Every structure is written in C-alpha cells, then in structure tokens.
C-alpha cells in the first residue's frame, strides 16, 4: 500500500476511511456510556429517570393549561414525554458533540484517526439514552391507549434519522467552531435553551397564532422528528409542511456542518 501525506487535499467525506475505523466508533461510544454511569449506584436508570421526571414536572405545571387551550393529539403526559426524549437526542447530542473535540484534545494532538469519529460517537451516546427513554415510554403509551399502527415503526425510524441528521449538522459545526473559538462553549447551552422554546417539545405548534413564531416552529430542524415521532402514537393527520420545511433546514445544516468540519479538521491539532 502506498499513500501520500500532503497539504489539505480536495474535499471528500472520507467514507472509506471512516469505514476502516468503524470499530473506533464503537469503542468511543462505549467508553462514553461506561464513563457516564461509572460510580453511580443507579447507573443506566438515570437515562430513564431524567426524561420521566421532566415529563412529570411539565405535566404538573403546564398540562392543564395547554390541554384546555389547544387540541392535542394525545394526552399531555404522553405528548410531553415523547417530545422530551426526542428533544434529548438533540440537546444532549449537541452538548456532547459540541464539546467533544475540546474534551478529546489530548487524543487529537497525539494520534491520527478520522476526526468525525469523535463528534459522531458522542452523538451515539444520546441515541443510547433515547433507547432507555423509549423503554419507559412504551408502558406510558399503553396506559393512555395510544393509537399504534404498522406505520408507527416507520415514523419512529424516520424521526430518529431526521433527529440524527439535525444533531449531526449542528453538532459537527459547533465542534469545529468550538475548537477554534472557545466562545462556543458558552453559546451551546444558551442555544439549546433558546431553541427549545422554538420547538414543539412541551406545547404544540398551533399554540400560537403569531406568524413569526409559527415560521420559527416550522423551520426548526427538530420539529419534523418530534412531529413524526408523535405521529407514531396517534392516528390524526400529520402536518407535512412542518416536516418538509424542517427537513430542508436539517439537510442544509447537515451539509454546512459536514463541509466546515472536514475543511478545518486538519488543523484541529494545531488549535486544540
């Protein structure tokens, strides 16, 4: 085998190389999951407790108000919890991915491997948390007699795919920016909080008549995954304009993140 090391070459996703290093995805994800719950007595239960408690809190505080003012497709506890566990993929995925290059700086500076592995692995940790949360969601859905059909499975898969694309896009973008400008360390939590208000996590899109707010809710990259995920538990029609707008924004972010990351990654070791 022969290869050349030179200045930054042409743009490529480097898929072949990522595939060669596929085991490293597993090891990094596995490390992050293990470390996250080491020395905790409840362990993986924490992944379940967090969304469950949050859903309970929102039900207490907002459940009555929202249910009486707007027409929900499902009982509020199920609505809130399904929204929250999908939102968590994004919020924790973005936090982890955004900081991943900085927290792994010592590895980046000492060894080469495709850099994309780091933010992707940290996002995979959030998918693991999702699975935990999903396990708790099932009895809740059964309790509220959610309308599950054959399509539900498809909706859930599509929702996960879109959530991953959105998280990947912003996550890699922020990871690359964060290593260059540490300002983003402070931007990330702030961004996530602000975005949550513009996402139909704890209230439906139709809660407001404000035109601008409607637009914000529709172009939000996490709106489509959340709406699709909920569609798995009800039999009402789905608002496709939301899905389309939101997915387009998601794809644009995906491309921006991927391209910016790949174009700057060669210099991560110099900046870290």
């Amino acid at each position: 085998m022969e290869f050349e090391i030179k200045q930054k070459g042409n743009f490529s996703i480097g898929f072949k190389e990522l595939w060669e290093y596929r085991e490293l995805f597993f090891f990094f994800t596995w490390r992050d999951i293990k470390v996250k719950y080491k020395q905790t007595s409840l362990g993986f239960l924490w992944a379940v407790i967090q969304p469950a408690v949050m859903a309970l809190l929102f039900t207490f505080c907002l459940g009555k108000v929202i249910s009486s003012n707007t027409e929900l497709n499902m009982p509020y506890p199920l609505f809130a919890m399904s929204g929250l566990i999908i939102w968590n993929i994004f919020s924790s995925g973005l936090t982890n991915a955004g900081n991943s290059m900085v927290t792994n700086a010592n590895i980046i500076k000492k060894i080469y491997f495709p850099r994309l592995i780091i933010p992707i692995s940290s996002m995979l940790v959030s998918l693991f948390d999702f699975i935990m949360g999903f396990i708790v969601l099932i009895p809740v859905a059964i309790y509220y007699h959610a309308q599950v059909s054959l399509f539900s499975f498809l909706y859930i898969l599509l929702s996960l795919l879109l959530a991953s694309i959105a998280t990947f896009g912003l996550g890699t973008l922020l990871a690359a920016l964060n290593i260059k400008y540490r300002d983003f360390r402070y931007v990330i939590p702030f961004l996530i909080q602000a975005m949550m208000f513009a996402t139909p996590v704890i209230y439906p899109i139709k809660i407001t008549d404000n035109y601008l707010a409607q637009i914000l809710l529709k172009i939000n990259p996490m709106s489509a995954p959340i709406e699709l995920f909920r569609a798995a538990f009800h039999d009402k029609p789905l608002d496709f304009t939301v899905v389309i707008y939101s997915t387009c924004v998601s794809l644009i972010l995906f491309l921006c993140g991927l391209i910016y990351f790949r174009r700057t990654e060669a210099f991560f070791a110099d900046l870290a």
Partner: protein
Amino acid sequence: MKPILEIRDISKKFKIATEGQSYLNLRDSLSSLLKKANKNTEEFWALKDVSFEVNTGDSIGIIGKNGAGKSTLLKILSKITPPTKGSIISRGRIASLLEVGTGFHPELSGRENVFLNGSILGMKRTEIQKNFDAIIDFAGVEKFLDTPLKHYSSGMQLRLAFAVAAFLENEILIIDEVLAVGDAEFQKKCMGKMSDLSKTSGRTVLFVSHNMAAVKSLCNRALVLEKGTVKMIDSTENAISYYLKGDTEVLNQRIFSKQHDKKEFSLHEIAFRTKGRTSEEPLIENFPIEFITDITLKTTESNQYHLTYHLYNEMGEAMFSFSHKGSQDLRVGRNRLVCEFPAGFFNSGTYYLSLYVIENNLKSVFTENDIMSFTIIDGDRPLGAWMGREPGYIKPNFNWSHLTT
C-alpha cells in the same frame, strides 16, 4: 527497492502571536473580516524544506535541541497536522506513539483500557484479542485487570500502555521520547522490545530522543535537526557527535599556525582520537582514547621544558591535570607524544583542555586556556542496560580481584 518513506521538502508554518493575543477569538476574527489582516501575528517556520528517505528496516534516530522541530516532524508523519508545503510518500502503515497510553481513561478498568487504547492506535478488535494475554503478561498487571485505571500506580499504567503499543503490527513505528519516563527496569524492557521490533521483525522505526545512548543502541542512522532544517543525516555516531559539538566547527583536533611558533617551541597540533581511528571520527566512551601533541622544541636542552595539561568539564570545573613528565621527556626537535586514556575512562560529555609549557619545572612560558575542546559520545550499551548518564565525569575501570586468604 523503493524507500518505505520519502519525505520531500516538508515545511510547516505556524502563526505566532506577538502582542498579548495568544488565543483565537471570535471577536477578532469577525473584526478582521472587515478590516485588513491582523497585524499582531508573525510567521514562524517550525520546519523548512526537510527531505530524507527511509528504507525498510531502517531505524532512524531524530536528534536536535528543544524547539528544533522534532515533534512537528513526527506530527506531520503521523498525519496529526498537515505540512504547509511538501509531501510524504509512505509505503507502509504508520503507527505513532507520541505518548504512551493515549486515550487511557482513569475510570475504566485495565482490560477495558487495553481495548480502547489499542483501538485508538488503529488495532482491530480481533488483533487485540489475539494478543491480549501477551500484552497483559508483558505489562505484568494480571491481578489488576478489572481494577479501574485510576487505582494503578503510574508505573503500572506506563507498563500497560507500552505493552499495548508493543503489539502494534504496523510496518512503520514513530516513537517519541517514550523512554523519558519510567524506572530503569521499565526502560530496559522497552529498549529490548524496540530493538526486537527493528532488528528482528524488520520494522522501520523513527525514534526521537534526547538520550544519546538510547539512540546509539537502537538506530543505525540518525538525523540532526536544527532550527527546522536537516543539518545532517549520517551514521548514528557521526550524527550524535555532530549534534553534541553544537556550533563549534572543528573539534577533537586543532592544527596550529604561526601564532604558536614561539621562541622556545613551535606547536603544530593537538588532537584526540579513538584508538585506531582518525580525529575526524567521534570519540566513543567505551574505546581507548589517544591524545596526541605534536610540538617542536627549539632549545638544546631537552629536559628544560615540559608540558602540563589541565582538563575542565562543561561547567568549567577543573577535573585534573596531567603531564608526560616522569614518563617521557621531551626530545630536542620534533616530538609526537601520545597519551592513551583507557577505554571507558571518560564519561560522555564535552571537555576543555588548557595547555601550559613549563620551563625548569617552575615558570610557565606559555599558557593557553581552552586551547581545545573535545566531545566524548556514548558507546553502544548492551540492550537492556541502563541508558541514562552515569554521574560524574570519569568512570575509570579499576583492577578488582578477590582476596585470597
């Protein structure tokens, strides 16, 4: 056969901040989009047009002072950072060990860390599994396999880390100063393993170290980097000797001109050489070393004059003085005196010599301080031996025997 590594005109530029601005920040970047480029940075070439070739099975030592560009070169070779100019053709898989235990996590157990670290270094899971017992055995941590790494002693962590790296199967290994850490026993083990890798299994090794004894014992060639450029690439002995003598041009030998043609004598040459070699070749600590003085006496009374030498170490401390007097007298006319220091007498290092020409055992008619300097380099040591520098400046071999009663 084509060389396994071809390094062609590699240069690496860094921008350094000159006025208090050492971190990139968003505000400055945004404002520099509007304004012209930032005035506060300066270019700095860490490497400049570095070219060399490495053949399969070579082990090359890379030596140079701190800041000479060694680490940058290794980082480019390891693909961690891209070169600003130039390219490298590699005909084998490169594994870089710029640090032992990269990616070790204190919360994970020893077993888990072996897999994690191995995987980061580019090993396949099956490869790690296959070598797992050997790795653990080499590290000697069987009992602590399931203990979190944070409870390991630093020595155990180091052994485990090196053990994983030792089982890499890549064709080219890049090793940075791994030996700087760890106790003598660990170093011994590492050196043995590294020599196995390069000598027995035909692996190509690039080895950066400040430990000349280690470089000498491991490498067949060495490269001297100075301020980002390759000063020389040659046999390990020559490269080390060149590196140690630094900026001074001619060493180990000084040939004198008219200035040393005095009323009483005329001095032609003072030189040190390894016995059986020329003065151009480096002086090696574990060989006998000859000291030659070439002088013509112009007087008629031969034993009127004698020469005394004072020897100083790098710190300027006098070590001892010596003279031919009492052993050989000077003759009238040309004298070529040879003094032999037994093998192993000098410890490695640079020494300075002062010369005194004494008249009638009393009066110094000529004195020159630091008339010459010479550098002794480390000799080969058996692999597995201590690679550090012994204390002191001389390490004479005395006669030892058992008392017979």
